[in-house]
């Protein structure tokens, strides 16, 4: 909890008093049916509307019939980089939630438990401040017997609202928005449960807290998870066609696009499989404007052949890969960054493609637009590597200026005199297709093709042409690499250790840097959002450090360097580049990074 020392820790005192804190981590543990994600969602949204930063973390049960599930939310008035290693407050509904998560509570933290279901352990009484409330029965009392299971989340929201002196009118408004369009009795019940919780003032809660005002006053924020940010980013970018097949955790994105695109005259098609969907998206890219497809793990593997066609035919396409635990069906609801290899090197033949990886939820939105624009500009397939962590993580970020950000990318059908889609003399190898519907006055029409081809797309078996076209496909990406900005080092640009990350790990890595520096260790961080091609000039950054540790959520691999680590080593041949890896399917805790980095440094 950053700055807690200066603002007062969340710990019980002798008398009810109000402490000002600048952030809090709340973990809610129950079963997936308990609506704990809803409580988390309300808290996150409230933080967004209060110009605070917020980050959430949740687990999804891997069994079909549901089961234990948690939602953790961290709200702060300063920068919030992770959802927090340890909680200040643990709200738990069952004995298993209590016993299973007490370890994630800070020493002296508050455990708020449903005394209808939880019997507290004597041996933990000292370490944690226990507050028992018969949440289930009080909810029944408040809203009647039937709604029991549905209301206790809102009752608990009331408890938390009271404890942290949250803005009740804003919360009421959020509840109202959530339950609009439904039977009004539902909203009334919800409000009743919430107010009952708010009114309850358990005797041994001796302190309430106020989160200090944000330093971002006046900034209007939106609150969403990474999958939503990607879907809306694509819409803002002008994408109007997509096709896919469901798979967790990609599915949300297709569900959003399926239901939203029609508003914009666009269409999203659920296909019979992943191969059909990448093919259909390519058909639409060929026919008009860059289309999107997406998947996770196994579905990405199935799209590989068609993506190779996109490389050869130089067809723009955005492929969203919401990574999950692999290999094979693996751990579908867990977090991993192990698809970098397939994204960069998964094609047969020499099939270079662009790989981007957003660092956080806001980045999901803007980088989706960048992905579309790179695909269009370079006529290439672009892999967008997000992961299960960002996908379901909720963050607040400043509302984008949509009038500026939204793009109109309707294709141009003005007749042209002549056209060579695979012009070998084009600067940096960058060419564009014209679209069906466009008349070509010299009567020579191009073919988009997966065979090696001449400049019009007609088959060629010429050795020279193959070398030149291979080079064209490579040079385009080298030109893109040269155009990319060098990422900024977090922390001093020179020092002992540089932590390199990519994708969703930016937050925990930065927080680890903060901890190191607070302890006097010379550690900085570099975050790569453009993973293939890499921006030029990284070697100059690396040269400022005596050790470069690539922090990734994937296996160390046969030779011990992880997936990005191996790529950096191959390019720079710098033996000080080493890996820090794990594959437990969970986001990095800051302390895990700190410990592993220490152990690597000790060596």
């Amino acid at each position: 909890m950053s700055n807690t020392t200066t603002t007062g820790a969340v710990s019980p005192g002798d008398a009810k008093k109000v402490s000002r804190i600048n952030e809090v981590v709340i973990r809610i543990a129950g079963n997936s049916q308990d609506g704990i994600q809803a409580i988390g969602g309300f808290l996150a949204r409230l933080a967004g509307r209060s110009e605070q930063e917020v980050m959430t973390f949740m687990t999804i049960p891997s069994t079909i019939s549901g089961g234990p599930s948690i939602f953790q939310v961290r709200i702060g008035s300063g920068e919030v980089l992770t959802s927090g290693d340890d909680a200040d407050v643990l709200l738990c509904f069952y004995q298993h939630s209590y016993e299973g998560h007490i370890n994630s509570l800070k020493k002296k933290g508050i455990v708020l438990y449903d005394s209808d279901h939880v019997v507290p352990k004597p041996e933990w009484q000292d370490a944690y401040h226990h507050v028992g409330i018969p949440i289930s029965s009080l909810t029944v009392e408040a809203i009647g017997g039937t709604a029991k299971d549905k209301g206790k989340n809102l009752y608990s929201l009331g408890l938390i609202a009271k404890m942290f002196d949250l803005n009740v009118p804003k919360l009421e408004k959020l509840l109202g928005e959530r339950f609009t369009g439904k039977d009004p009795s539902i909203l009334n019940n919800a409000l009743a449960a919430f107010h009952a919780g708010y009114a309850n003032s358990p005797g041994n809660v001796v302190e309430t807290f106020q989160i200090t005002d944000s330093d971002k006053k006046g900034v209007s924020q939106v609150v969403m998870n990474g999958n939503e940010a990607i879907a809306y980013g694509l819409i803002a970018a002008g994408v109007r066609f997509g096709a896919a097949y469901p798979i967790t955790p990609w599915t949300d994105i297709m569900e959003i696009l399926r239901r939203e695109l029609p508003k914009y005259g666009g269409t999203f098609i659920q296909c019979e499989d992943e191969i059909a969907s990448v093919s259909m998206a390519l058909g639409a890219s060929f026919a008009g404007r860059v289309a999107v497809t997406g998947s996770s793990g196994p579905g990405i593997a199935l799209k590989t052949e068609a993506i190779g066609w996109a490389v050869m035919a130089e067809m723009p396409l955005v492929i969203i890969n919401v990574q999950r635990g692999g290999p094979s069906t693996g751990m579908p609801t867990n977090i991993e960054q192990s698809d970098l290899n397939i994204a960069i090197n998964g094609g047969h033949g020499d099939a270079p493609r662009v790989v981007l990886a957003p660092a956080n939820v806001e980045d999901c939105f803007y980088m989706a637009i960048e992905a579309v624009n790179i695909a269009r500009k370079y006529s290439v397939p672009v892999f967008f590597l997000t992961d299960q962590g960002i996908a379901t993580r909720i963050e607040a970020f400043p509302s984008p200026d949509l009038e500026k950000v939204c793009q109109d990318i309707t294709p141009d059908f003005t007749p042209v005199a002549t056209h060579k889609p695979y012009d070998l003399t084009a600067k940096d190898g960058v060419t564009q297709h014209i679209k069906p519907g466009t008349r070509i006055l010299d009567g020579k029409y191009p073919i988009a093709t997966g065979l090696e081809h001449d400049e019009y797309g007609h088959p060629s078996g010429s050795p020279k042409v193959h070398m030149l076209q291979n080079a064209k496909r490579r040079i385009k990406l080298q030109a893109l690499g040269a155009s990319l900005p060098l990422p900024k080092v977090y922390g001093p640009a020179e020092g002992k250790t540089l932590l390199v990350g990519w994708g969703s790990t930016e937050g925990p890595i930065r927080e680890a840097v903060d901890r190191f520096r607070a302890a006097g260790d010379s550690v900085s961080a570099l975050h790569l959002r453009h993973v293939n091609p890499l921006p030029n000039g990284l070697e100059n950054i690396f040269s400022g450090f005596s050790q470069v540790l690539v922090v990734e959520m994937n296996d160390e691999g046969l030779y011990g360097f992880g997936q990005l680590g191996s790529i950096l080593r191959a390019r720079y041949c710098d033996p000080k580049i080493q890996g820090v890896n794990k594959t437990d399917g969970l986001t990095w805790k800051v302390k895990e990074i700190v410990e592993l980095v220490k152990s690597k440094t000790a060596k």
Partner: protein
Amino acid sequence: MSQILSDKPVVPAAVTETATGERKGLTKKEIAADHPTWCPGCGDFSVLALYFKLIEKRKLWHEKITTISGIGCSSRFPYFVQAHGAHFIHGRALPFASGVSLSRPDLHVFAFSGDGDAFSIGGNHFTHTARKNIKMTLVVMDNQVYGLTKKQTSPTSPLGFKSKTDIWGAVDYPINPAKQAIAVGASFVARTSAANPNHVLAMMEAAMDHDGFSFVHCLSECVEFYEGAFDVANPRKGGAFNEVPKNHDVTDELAAYKLAGADFPGNFGVLYKVNKPTKNAREAEINASFQSKFTGLKDWQILQKTFDRMK
């Protein structure tokens, strides 16, 4: 949703302008591109010639036709046509063509495929494109063999056919493409033979005019690896070209299924044709109903409304 609203396709301005002008229909010379690389005598030449004829006769223009294929001898088709085209990957011409069809209502979308391409590796796309009734024409040039890879058994090879993968004669029961198409919900199913040019043209025309997924199953002889396969359907080779009986009701699914199942080579002509809403129309209808709620708003304003709810 039962009624199909007509969703106006955004026809590119420049083209419409020209279109209303005085352009004449294309000549064969203007339509022909590369000289076909097929073996002399291959049935596919005939199909290509009739595609040219269709374009000439129906006064289609280069930029309005899209010719799409997978991989195979037959799938070399797009290279031989002067029009926007795509030579995609093996077996996936249909979903690619669907992407074109569903996003560009102003184009004529034709897919050309071989028996392996369409019914072996591409068999599932055949099923699902048909059931969704996506508007386009699929012509399968069925030579009952894998041509490009030099004589392996195809899913339409008859029992006993001696290929390189069945030197003792094929042992797998072949599929009947027309039956499969009818069973999975295709709305237009016709059978023809490259050896009968007038008939091919008639079927292509009927297919093009059908508002839905139209499937033309065209026997097309591979003179290199399965010579004489279709002599039995060729009067010039002592066979008989039996047309669909005049009294056949093309809208009667059972009758069509039965006719399609007749012993090889069966009857030629339109076996089945029913009108039902296309996927294109259904999606256009969904769009129209949503868009009517946002009339006059720019795209960014629509998105802004959504973001306002995410605060």
